[in-house]
């Protein structure tokens, strides 16, 4: 079987960047798989250790999304599902920068967000919480980072809601988010919370994280300077993805 030869540690054969390998993920910054305080993880957590390998060419490359796929209002959840008017709730702007571990901005990468409405109800066929749906709120948004890694979207602050865990636990207000970076190995899905929410310290899902520093890094901070007078409060939330080594630190193909 013939194959194309790529340089060791190479990324994609097409597309930008003769970038180096994505740096090993520091698993100590993340929750372990088995977190019995979050009961659903008990039967959904592998018992064997993960098999660790340096990422190869396929893991150093990754899917690319063109900003042209986005419709004009996709980053405005107040209006992107409007039927008879704007979505109900506390109007907020969430914004920040996406950087990698080395401080490099992650440019032109797709961010997807989803959330409950102001009453804590998701527009999902499987959510049966008694709070009402808002006919003008879908809860899905997308945006791209710019050339400096900046992003923003406008939405309403989601409501807290009860869920089955230790009887009725309550989720703090949160927004789910998903990022791709420019490598398959940088994929990240997580949730952002709001400064000052009294449910934050009680949340079993935030409680899966190893320490207070990790939990704090998922809390968006109120930013009065960026708030829009007589319109919307602003919350700042910066995101960090795995970085890449410079190519001159990579092993040579014939090296050890």
């Amino acid at each position, binding site marked *: 079987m013939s194959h194309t030869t790529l340089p060791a540690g190479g990324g994609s054969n097409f597309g930008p960047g003769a970038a180096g390998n994505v740096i090993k993920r520091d698993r100590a910054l993340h929750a372990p798989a088995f977190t019995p305080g979050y009961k659903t993880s008990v039967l959904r957590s592998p018992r064997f250790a993960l*098999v660790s390998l340096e990422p190869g060419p396929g893991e150093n490359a990754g899917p690319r999304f063109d900003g042209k796929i986005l419709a004009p209002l996709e980053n405005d959840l107040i209006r992107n599902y409007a039927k008879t008017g704007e979505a109900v709730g506390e109007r907020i702007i969430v914004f920040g920068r996406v950087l990698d571990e080395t401080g490099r901005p992650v440019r032109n990468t797709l961010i997807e967000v989803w959330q409950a409405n102001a009453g804590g109800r998701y527009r999902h066929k499987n959510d049966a919480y008694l709070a009402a749906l808002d006919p003008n709120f879908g809860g899905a948004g997308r945006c791209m980072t710019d050339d400096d890694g900046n992003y923003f979207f406008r939405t309403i602050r989601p409501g807290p809601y009860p869920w089955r865990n230790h009887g009725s636990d309550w989720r703090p207000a949160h927004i789910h988010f998903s990022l791709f970076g420019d490598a398959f190995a940088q994929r990240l899905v997580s949730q952002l919370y709001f400064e000052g929410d009294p449910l934050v310290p009680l949340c079993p899902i935030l409680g899966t994280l190893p320490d207070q520093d990790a939990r704090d890094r998922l809390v968006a901070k109120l930013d009065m300077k960026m708030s829009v007078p007589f319109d919307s409060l602003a919350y700042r939330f910066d995101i960090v993805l795995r970085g890449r080594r410079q190519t001159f630190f990579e092993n040579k193909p014939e090296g050890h």
Partner: protein
Amino acid sequence: MPIEYLKETPSQTGGPYVHIGTMPAFAGLEIRQEEQQHVIPGPGERVRLVGVVWDGSGHPLRDAMLELWQADSAGRHNAPDFSGWGRAAASSETGEWEFDTIRPGVVPWRDGTPQAPHVSLLIFARGINIHLHTRLYFPEDEAALAADPVLRAVEQTGRRATLVARRVEGGDVPTYRFDIRLQGEGETVFFDM
């Protein structure tokens, strides 16, 4: 003092409503109805990949969302005519998921040795704190499987078979079944790459 790097943002579960943001039509939103993210168009031999993600009690995950990443038929990533990327939702009734894609080509590993044709899969679901990363290999490529540098990194040789799909009869295109077991007997190999 050691050099300070920024710390990666911690992962949290995608939750049961992950589809709202990733596959909104599946969630029931009246937007992006035309999307078929589990179909990955492009030149090459069409193949169908089907399976179920099973929990440690043998129960299917009916809220899982899977993402696929693969090379084109010539072993290239980000080729101009093939995205190499797709998404599938497990059925809310049975947990079955499905991708319609092309048979991938051979991608060299870091040292230039060929890898056996494979697709990479990520699993997101309620109860999964950080997405799980596995690979689906094709059963016909016996010699390539035996030489594959990633499979060979799995020390327990008996576990390597958890990464090889099974060809199933029927279907208009070659169809492969890949059961992912999160825990217990036959636990699938998951990677940290």
